[in-house]
């Protein structure tokens, strides 16, 4: 606006006023300068300097242009404002583009680098506990046997003599019943003392007493025999025993199940070998060897359930037959994990437990 002209009406073809012309050229050169400065900014701090110079909210050069804009006449102001807004949008867009350009230059593999840290510092690791290696071994045996339809069962550890001996065809005169070879309880049930079970076969008797064939079970748990503790013996240990009772069961089924077990447990096609042995509750009875690292390793005992045992639980030995096998958990766990002294399993040293 020009006070001197006194003109109040804008003329369409009116010549551009000097003031406006000066404003427009000033805006143009500001634009050019901003373009140059922004283009020249090669990192964040140069760009920030440019932003403050041109777009700074308090003393930026665009802010200064608003002073000039307000000094234009009412006639000139729309044209000036338009030019100003275009310049501002241009510079803002240039700035955004430059910011992206610089950020892109600082990324690796497309990811923005924020605050870089020492990635080799220790993480805040959550402590996870460990399942005991014997439990892991038991679960592994259970898991493999369950694929063949064997159900895990549990029974009492304090037993009567019927289940621990008589039903298993271990007669009153059998040396296995010697007081020095068992943990008898001081309390009597009738006249016969109870005892800590010396084998998990007791559970098989209990299951057979309650259920009819077909049966496929694995009984497992703690058993107790008075052995002096040393590297290979402990007076308390764990047994896993399998039992299958079905019509038409043969030793070929027994060997095939153990072959399946050994191959699953040890991996690969593991050969199984039977050697004749003697257990009161199986007949024929065998020792089971499995080939491990080129050597035959004794894994446990097995056999066809003795007809006398089938009769003692009320089964007809001519109608059904079955097999049983037993594995020492400590023995296979020690072998599997390279534990030389089975007492280590009961030391409960956390440094030991955390290795499994």
């Amino acid at each position, binding site marked *: 606006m020009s006070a001197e002209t006194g003109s109040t009406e804008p003329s369409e073809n009116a010549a551009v006023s000097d003031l406006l012309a000066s404003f427009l050229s000033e805006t143009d050169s500001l634009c050019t300068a901003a373009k140059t400065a922004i283009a020249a900014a090669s990192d964040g701090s140069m760009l920030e300097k440019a932003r403050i110079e041109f777009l700074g909210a308090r003393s930026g050069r665009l802010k200064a242009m608003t002073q000039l804009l307000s000094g234009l006449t009412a006639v000139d102001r729309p044209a000036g404002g338009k030019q100003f807004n275009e310049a501002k949008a241009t510079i803002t867009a240039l700035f955004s583009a430059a910011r992206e350009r610089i950020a892109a230059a600082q990324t690796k593999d497309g990811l923005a680098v924020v605050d870089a840290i020492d990635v080799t510092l220790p993480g805040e690791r959550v402590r996870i506990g460990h399942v005991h290696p014997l439990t892991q071994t038991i679960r592994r045996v259970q898991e493999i046997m369950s694929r063949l339809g064997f159900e895990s069962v549990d029974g009492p550890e304090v037993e009567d003599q019927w289940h621990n001996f008589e039903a298993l065809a271990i007669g009153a005169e059998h*040396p296995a019943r010697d007081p020095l070879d068992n943990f008898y309880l001081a309390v009597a049930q009738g006249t016969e003392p109870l005892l800590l079970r010396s084998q998990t076969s007791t559970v098989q008797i209990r299951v057979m007493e309650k259920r009819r064939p077909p049966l496929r079970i694995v009984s497992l748990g703690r058993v107790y025999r008075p052995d002096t503790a040393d590297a290979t013996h402990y007076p308390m240990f764990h047994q896993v025993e399998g039992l299958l009772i079905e019509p038409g069961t043969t030793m070929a*089924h027994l060997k095939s199940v153990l072959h399946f077990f050994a191959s699953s447990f040890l991996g690969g096609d593991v050969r199984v070998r039977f050697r004749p042995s003697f257990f009161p509750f199986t007949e024929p009875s065998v020792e089971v060897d499995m080939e491990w690292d080129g050597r035959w390793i004794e894994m446990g005992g097995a056999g066809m359930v003795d007809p006398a045992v089938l009769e003692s639980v009320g089964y007809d030995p001519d109608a059904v037959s079955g097999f049983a096998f037993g594995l020492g958990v400590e023995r296979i766990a020690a072998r599997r994990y390279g534990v030389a002294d089975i007492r280590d399993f009961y030391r409960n040293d*956390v440094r030991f437990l*955390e290795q499994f």
Partner: protein
Amino acid sequence: MIISTNWLADYVQLQVLPASLADRLLMSGLNHESTRAVGADTAIEIEVTSNRPDCLGHIGVAREAAVLFSRPLSTPDPRPLEGKGDAARSITVEIHDQTLCPFYSARVIRGVRVGSSPQWLVDRLRTVGIESINSIVDITNYVMLECGQPLHAFDLQTIQNGCITVRRALAGEVFTAINHKTYSLTDKMCVVADAVGPLALAGVMGGVRSEIGPQTVDILLECAQFAPLAVRAAARGLVLASASSYRFERGPDPAAVDWASRRAAAMILDNAGGMLESGTVTAGTLVCAPASVDLRHDRVANVLGINIQAARQQEILLGLGFESEGSDAVCSRWKAPTWRRDVSREIDLVEEIVRIEGYDRVPEDEPIAARPVELSLHEKTLRLASDALVGAGLCEAMTRSVVNDALETTCSPWGSALPLVVSPALVRGADRLRRTLLPSLLEARMGTLAVGAPHGDLFEIARAYLADDTANKDQGTASSRSGLIQEPLLLSLVTSGNFSTAKGLAEAVLGRLGFDPWEINPASNTGYEFRPLQLDLFSPGRAAEIMLCTAGSTAIRIGVVGEIAQPIRDRFGSQPAVSAAELRLDRLEFAAGIEKKLQSLSDFPAIGRDLNLVVGEAVPWASIAAAIYSAAGKLLEECRLVQVWQDVERLGAGKKSVVVSLRLRSATGTLSGDDAMRTIDAIVAACGQQVGATLRA
């Protein structure tokens, strides 16, 4: 049992290497222990199972080898020359108790020269690890190792009037054995005695009084059957096991009694001279009635799953000494040899056949039909519980079920009956069946911290053992088989945290097993709540019992939790602060059988409200929570305790502020502010009525 290959060659010509022999014996039931050269001989040590006393002599092993290698077996038939004199006039034999000694026989040889044995005899004994003593003793040992029947030679002159009595030992009776040690006997044992006293501990060891020595001229040669139980009572009770007792415990061949007597007499005459009086003086009866056993033709295949030709079956049984008693369309009949009293049933014959034929023939690829199987509630519970604690950073421990007195004096949360006691002790001093796992875990924790483990946070899942305790019986499930003893399945844990840590771990397990706090929904079937508890194990005021509440029944204790009391910590190696919990998993197993059903989730917006309730400082959180839930209705989704604080100036004396954060949400629509407000008002009113709470602005 050690066998000499030179000796074995007396009965069977094998013409195989010792290693090959050992391997075949191994695969037919005589486990191989070791093989070693002894001079020009080879000693093979084998393990003989308790059912095979026949293989405790060289002839028995030779018989096995002969069958395995299809070679003929030849055994001596000794016929010692009887001279003048009648043994029955020199000695008498009487058995007082035939349950201890079914049969006794004695021969008399006069005028022997007791000297050293010939070299071949000394060599053979040396191969099998027996030192030569003199010609008489060596011969009795030799014959025992030949046929498995023990013998004993007495110096006849030392036997008063030549009168032998086999009787039960008197309790406290004193006996000096040939090892010059004196033993005090019990009435479970059997002695061979004269009028003066015991001459020998029957079947175990001879006495020093009647020992054969250079002075001996006349001998009494004993060959008898002694009962396994009496022999075992003496051998074990006096820790006096011998080669003789080992064999009598397993029961030698009854037919070998006479053979061994003849064999030893003949060898003595040959090697020590002297004259054998005629006849054998005997007492008792020799029971020797081998069983006749029928073998169905299809039985071998039905048991083994393989076919073995009938001719081969016969060949094996005949070779082992079985006698054929005929055959028909269904079965063949066999009479067992006297030395195989372990064979009395058809299944025993099947085992004999496959044992010799070899298990290698049994296939290992027989198909087996699939069957469905599911984990039991017990197994599911074990896994859920241990997974929860492993996730929380605890390690699973395994400690002994039988503990010592010091551990057991810590009382059990599960009953007041005294601990059950076992004999012998599991390890030195440990003869009490534990009633709680906590002391064992505290001990384990002490042990692992002492060696510098990174932490001692442990848990264990195992049974405890409780004598019948009526106070405890009505508390629900018991895994008792006899009614006398319960074996609760316990889960115990120890942690370095405080009460709240142990409680949180217990709640994590309970949550994993599917249990919620009772106050959340008292109308539901079950839930747990914590109640203050006094127990010596825990610091006063820092312990709780966990109760399982079931709608319509009495709450039962399913756990305890607390900070371990200082005196208990002192007992376990002055441990730093430790808290513990123990849960009765046997009372929680049922929950593993409850099918999980989806609770539908609401996507409508929730409204949160915090309430600052001021209550008396003695009001427990459980009462406040119960008041909130009682009034909340279906809209309350979560009630969370934010903060508890006390400030006399701002709240007044005896007051505390309890800040709770509530989240309300409707399942059916967007909750209006008014609806939310009504619920909040009801909650505030209930808290006012039930626990005297006022709302702090």
